[in-house]
């Protein structure tokens, strides 16, 4: 009896050691690619004998808290996601450099630490603007190519509004940014980034630097607030405050709204709903002068945790995504992402990713700076101000004053 027990115990220990050696855990934030990544990880595990486990937190739940909980529980992930400088600063003691990894030669979008060392693997490039339903714009006689300044938008919104019944529209723009539904990232981060970068060179950080110093560029900021008020005027306040990501998409996908304030990460959901009308992105052109470009950036980077001792296994997994055909197939076809790597030859088939790829290829892009904002500022502090403008508690002037005060609060 004792002998059997000893054998069993020994076997358990060996099993434990084996699985502990090959386990790689990824904590990532893109709910929409969860299924595709799980599938790819399973196929990779079957092929190489590594055991890759994917944990996802994001969308309406908050990725950063999931990640912190993983770290706090002591089960640190081997690969996790940073979304920019604030994530890097928070975890820099854990992040390994990957200068010699195979994938590095195929991309210009790697995340570099302040010393210029490669630390982050670009998950994809993503873009957003105002997606439009081309059928509806055609029926209203609006050429989307003209939507490059705020006056053109104003005219277009007015025209669509006057034809609402005829076109079967509930509202003109589908927006959701409620605190209750956790959608404040679309306003407090993505929409606010319009102010930070539209019309500027990709390396120009003057506006975000000012914000971080607690200041705004008065003229530019005033125009931005006018643009936000214009969007709010033509969106459905009920959908804005109560709507989830799915409800927002449903409004656009069912032809109840002409414009859609979301990025190309929604493509898998659009495909799943079987949407068949043509769509593409128009710029967030908030100024009177023309700004012809959408907002494109790697949204996030995979970084490798140097404290778990699985560096080689983790880098091998990342290499397999960037440097094998299966990896390319996963990124483009399965996860419907626009890859950040030059050695990928497949083009995306989904409508919004295709549009992002076209703007990107034409070089008409502005960068993302919103992740330089302090933790919680965009979603927690700015988001509620947009909500109050949408539900009518604040008017445009009140909105402008509140956002300005919130920005001034950063420097304190």
């Amino acid at each position, binding site marked *: 009896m004792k002998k059997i027990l000893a054998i069993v115990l020994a076997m358990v220990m060996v099993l434990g050691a084996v699985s502990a050696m090959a386990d790689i855990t990824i904590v990532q934030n893109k709910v929409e690619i969860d299924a595709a990544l799980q599938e790819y990880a399973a196929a990779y595990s079957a092929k190489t004998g590594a055991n890759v486990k994917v944990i996802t937190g994001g969308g309406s739940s908050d990725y950063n808290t999931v990640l912190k909980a993983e770290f706090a529980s002591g089960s640190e992930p081997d690969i996790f996601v940073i979304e920019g400088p604030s994530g890097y600063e928070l975890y820099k003691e854990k992040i390994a450099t990957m200068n010699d990894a195979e994938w590095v030669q195929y991309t210009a979008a790697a995340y570099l630490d302040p010393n210029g060392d490669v630390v982050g693997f670009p998950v994809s490039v993503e873009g957003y603007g105002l997606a439009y339903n081309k059928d509806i714009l055609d029926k209203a006689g609006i050429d989307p190519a003209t939507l490059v300044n705020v006056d053109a938008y104003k005219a277009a919104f007015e025209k669509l509004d006057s034809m609402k019944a005829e076109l079967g529209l509930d509202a003109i723009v589908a927006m959701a940014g409620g605190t209750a539904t956790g959608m404040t990232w679309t306003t407090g981060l993505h929409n606010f980034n319009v102010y930070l970068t539209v019309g500027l060179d990709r390396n120009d950080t003057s506006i975000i630097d000012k914000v971080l110093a607690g200041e705004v560029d008065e003229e530019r900021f005033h125009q931005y607030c006018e643009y936000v008020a214009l969007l709010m005027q033509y969106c459905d306040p009920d959908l804005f405050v*109560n709507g989830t990501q799915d409800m927002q998409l449903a409004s656009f996908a069912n032809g109840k709204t002409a414009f859609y304030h979301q990025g190309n990460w929604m493509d898998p959901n659009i495909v799943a709903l079987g949407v068949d009308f043509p769509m593409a992105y128009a710029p967030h052109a908030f100024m009177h002068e023309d700004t012809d470009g959408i907002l494109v950036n790697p949204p996030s980077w995979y970084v490798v945790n140097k404290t778990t001792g699985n560096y080689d296994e983790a880098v091998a997994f990342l290499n397999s995504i960037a440097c094998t055909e299966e990896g390319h197939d996963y990124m483009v076809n399965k996860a419907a992402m626009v890859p950040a790597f030059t050695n990928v030859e497949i083009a995306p088939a989904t409508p919004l990713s295709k549009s992002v790829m076209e703007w990107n290829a034409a070089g008409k892009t502005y960068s993302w700076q919103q992740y330089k904002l*302090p933790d919680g500022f965009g979603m927690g502090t700015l988001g509620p101000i947009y909500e109050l403008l949408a539900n009518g508690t604040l008017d445009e002037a009140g909105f402008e004053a509140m956002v300005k005060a919130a920005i001034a609060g950063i420097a304190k």
Partner: protein
Amino acid sequence: MNERSGLSSKQRRKLTEFLFLVPTVLAFIMVIIIPFIYGIYYSFTDWNGVSTSANFIGLSNYKEIFTNDPQFLRSFLVTTEFTLFNVIAVNVVSFLLSLLVTSQVKGKNFYRAAYFVPNLIGGIVLGSIWQFVFANILPGIGKSLGWAFLSKSFITNANTVIGALVTVNTWQYAGYIMMIYVASIQGISRSVLEAAEVDGATYPTVVRHILMPLMANAFTISLFLTLTNSFKMYDVNLALTNGGPAGLVGTNIVNMSEFLALNIYNTAFKYSKMAQGQAKAVVFFVILMVVSLIQVSYNKSKEVEM
């Protein structure tokens, strides 16, 4: 045996008692006492939750909470408001339900089970279901019937959101408290009730002058449970409203239904101010302890012995 261990039987019994206690005490120390002391320590530092270093900064976190944090003040007020209404609602409803299911009504066992069932659903699931009810179903009904008051969602209106939270929590928790009252009613001797009946007491008189005084210990425990439960409310708050809607109080924008527990969590995790979150948790603990001590000692004084 005694000679071998060299212990008297009294000592052996003491040792046995001690050994039986060890696992529980050890677990209690590890998961309650030590984290609690750590928490107090961290509330005096600037730890962000991830960094390996934490600098001692004295009382700065506490000063910040009380002087420069409108959201914490709002959270405190709204939690108090919710607790007040919720304690009343849950106890009134569960007391009435307990009278119903101990009466001669047909199928009372079915009702007992039915009222208890919502308590078995997890708070997050329940919050999500009710969010759908408040955000889609009720406004849908309101719009199709043309009732203006129903056509707007209750959970995105600052004036009704607390009512919505009280409704959901009462629906979830009343069945549980009802069971405590039922047990208490069943523990009352039949002879007392029959004597009252013989004396010609009406049903309301029996409830008021016999049942309620004899159930005083059940009120103590039920009020304590609902009070602490309401004050610590987190899961339903998160899933149903996530602290929303946003609102304007004075010149500050705050989340109108962000209760203290959620506020502590958001401070620690969303804003990466773990130490300040800890300081809030310490304040929260002190408030909760004081309030519940007052409640228990007050209720204890009302209890009668048979």
